């Protein structure tokens, strides 16, 4: 596959030339895939998925499954998280990453301390560290997005501020994803 053939936007995955060669995770197994589907539904409506179904996508479970299928050569394009893709590139697999022009979906991983945690101060310290420049620099290595200003992403990766992001609130995700899972099953069959 030549770089100029690669899709540029989510909607490019609907091109019949990818029939049977598109991979995604499953929203019921992967929160990340669920958030992604919700974001795309918000921008393009559910018709996006009805059209995707016509392209006979290969649906795995986790957001990493598409990576596996692409590395195998089973599929040619797929939806995954950037850090998975870059980790796989670093292992020497011949794949590339596209940041779609119609909007990234951020897969946010919040952290919390249980009310009755045995060592709340240690947990607080750990969370402080997760918000530190050290941590931010560390995670850029595998292609995760640094959220601190002034820390550049992994070389070759566009900065978050320069890209279109599909905004989703916590409430939208909480109520939207379970509903979406049912819709997904009706459209894709399982």
């Amino acid at each position, binding site marked *: 596959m030549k770089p100029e053939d690669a899709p540029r936007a989510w909607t490019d995955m609907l091109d019949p030339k990818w029939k*049977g*060669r598109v991979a995604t995770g*499953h929203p*019921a*197994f992967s929160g990340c895939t669920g958030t992604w589907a919700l974001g795309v539904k918000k921008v393009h409506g559910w018709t996006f998925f009805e059209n995707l179904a016509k392209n006979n996508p*290969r*649906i*795995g*479970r*986790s957001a*990493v*499954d598409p*990576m*596996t*299928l692409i*590395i*195998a*050569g*089973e*599929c040619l394009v797929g939806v995954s998280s950037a850090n*998975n893709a870059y980790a*796989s590139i670093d*292992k*020497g*697999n*011949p794949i590339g990453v596209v940041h779609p022009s119609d909007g990234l979906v951020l897969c946010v991983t919040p952290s919390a301390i249980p009310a009755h945690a045995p060592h709340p101060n240690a947990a607080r310290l750990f969370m402080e560290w997760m918000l530190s420049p050290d941590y931010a620099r560390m995670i850029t290595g595998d292609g995760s997005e640094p959220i601190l200003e002034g820390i550049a992403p992994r070389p070759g990766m566009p900065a978050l501020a320069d890209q279109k992001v599909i905004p989703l609130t916590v409430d939208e995700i909480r109520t939207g994803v*379970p509903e979406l899972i049912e819709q997904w*099953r009706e459209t*894709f*069959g*399982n």
Partner: protein
Amino acid sequence: MGRVSAYPWIGGNDNATITIRAKCREDPLSAGLPKIRRRSLPFDPLIILWIVLAAALVILVVNPLFRLVQTSLQDTDTGAFTWMNYVTAYSRPRYITAMLNSLRLGAGVTVLCLLFAVPIAWAVSRTDMPGKGIIRFLVLGAFVTPPYLGAIGWILLAGPNSGWLNRIWMGLTGAQEGLFNIYSFGGLTFNIAIYSFPYLFIFTTAALDLVSSEMEDAANILGAGILRTTLRVTLPMALPAILGGAIVTFLEAIALFGSPALIAIPARFNVVTTQLLQFFSQPIRAEVAAAYAVPLLLITVVMFGLQRQLVRRRGFVALTGKGGERRVMEIGPWRWVMLGYALFILCLAVLLPYIVLGQAALSKAWGRGFSLDNLTLHNFTYLLFEHDTAARSVMNSFTYAAAAACIAITLGLSIAYIASRRLLPFSGVLSFLCMAPFVVPGIVLAIAFYAAYAPPPFALYGTATILILAFATRFLPVGYSAADAAIRAINPEMEEAVRILGGGRLTAIRQVMAPLMKRSLIGAWLLVFIPATRELSSAMFLYGPKTRTMSVMLMDMSEEGNFESLAALGFLLLISTLVIVGIATALLGRDFMLRRER
């Protein structure tokens, strides 16, 4: 009434003893019998054993299943009785489709397994086919391969675009599309069958090994050829074992979780187990899942009843203690045909998948294919020395499996003995309970255990205890069937001889039954132990941070796309299993599922 005084000492026909004893208790006239006759019916210590066994089965089988059924008939919030869960469980066409898919899958797998296992078993057991050692070894290889590992191997082989077989096909013919698609109903059926047929092979060879050549000779003398003898004499003798094995295969196939998760989900159809996973994922609807699982229980009850009817009608006793000559049949050039067939099936089950898995295990990145600069041993050293939990999960798997096998065999053996010799009333109930877990798919069993033992006062969730108990329950039917087969193969006349000569039942068991059954029991133990080391579906919902098993870890790795480490872990599992089987073989003087060449 003269028989009453005679039988309890001799113990000739146990059935008669029981009925007569029962009569004595009920019959008001018996109160007037002379004292000596009453003393001839002493308190039977077997009653205590019966109570212990019944209690164990209540803990392992009755209580969890009761909680399952109870949950299915309860409103989760109010606890009130309701049929609504059943309505929900069957309200959508796709839920029904999943159930029909499972039945079709079970039937397809069973038919394929019969085609794979019976000819190979016959050739290995009864004919002069060459290379029996290697065939038995490869069947063992298929048997110890976890189905989900085999499924991954076959995804690498028969993925419609990338599979090695399809790439070779496209390369040879210039075709645009591959020949095989593992992501299909047929693909899943084939994949499960190729790793399930060893069960049927073991059941069939065990039975065929016991068929005396005298019967075949008789058929030959009467003018029957090899084919006619085999079809009319040899195979019918083994029919109960083959049918029993087929039923086991069917139930095992519909209960399987790992392969459908890997193949059916991408192929976009559901079977019962993947549908159950949906009910258990957020928002968890355990009550609907329970309702969905209950009809499967009924299917198994019916099938088990059917099997018992079949076996009862043809009460064969093949091993009589009188000795019978067993020779192999000479089948001429056909022995090469049989060898070719056996090798072909075992290539599909063992050789091809392990070549591609080996490539992945030894690769830095398996997508880069077979090349020298892609070679590494790091995946193995990583798992053994660097990974946080891999070594521990390997240890967990083997410890839990050993403990579960001991429980299952002890229970299964005791109950099979009581039932087959009809020592105590209601032993049929006990043996039914031993077989009942077969109907319960592993994930449902896990939820039943969760419902029964996770809340206080037990609070066992995530502990080794709950995993061991769940594994023991899950494989109790295997332990029971194997023990039952071992007991049925021994004619009671040998025990009766002991008792006529004045020995008690315990003497008969110790001096006659134990030596005769020692080997088949170690074989039975391994039949439980090996699947327990790779058990996935019941572990999925019960493990805790410190009790993760190897199977759970393999599944996690498959979802992480970490195929290099996954394949390496699969090899570690395979090697350690083979080492254990090797030690057992050395101790036994034969393989657990095979006899030495005669």
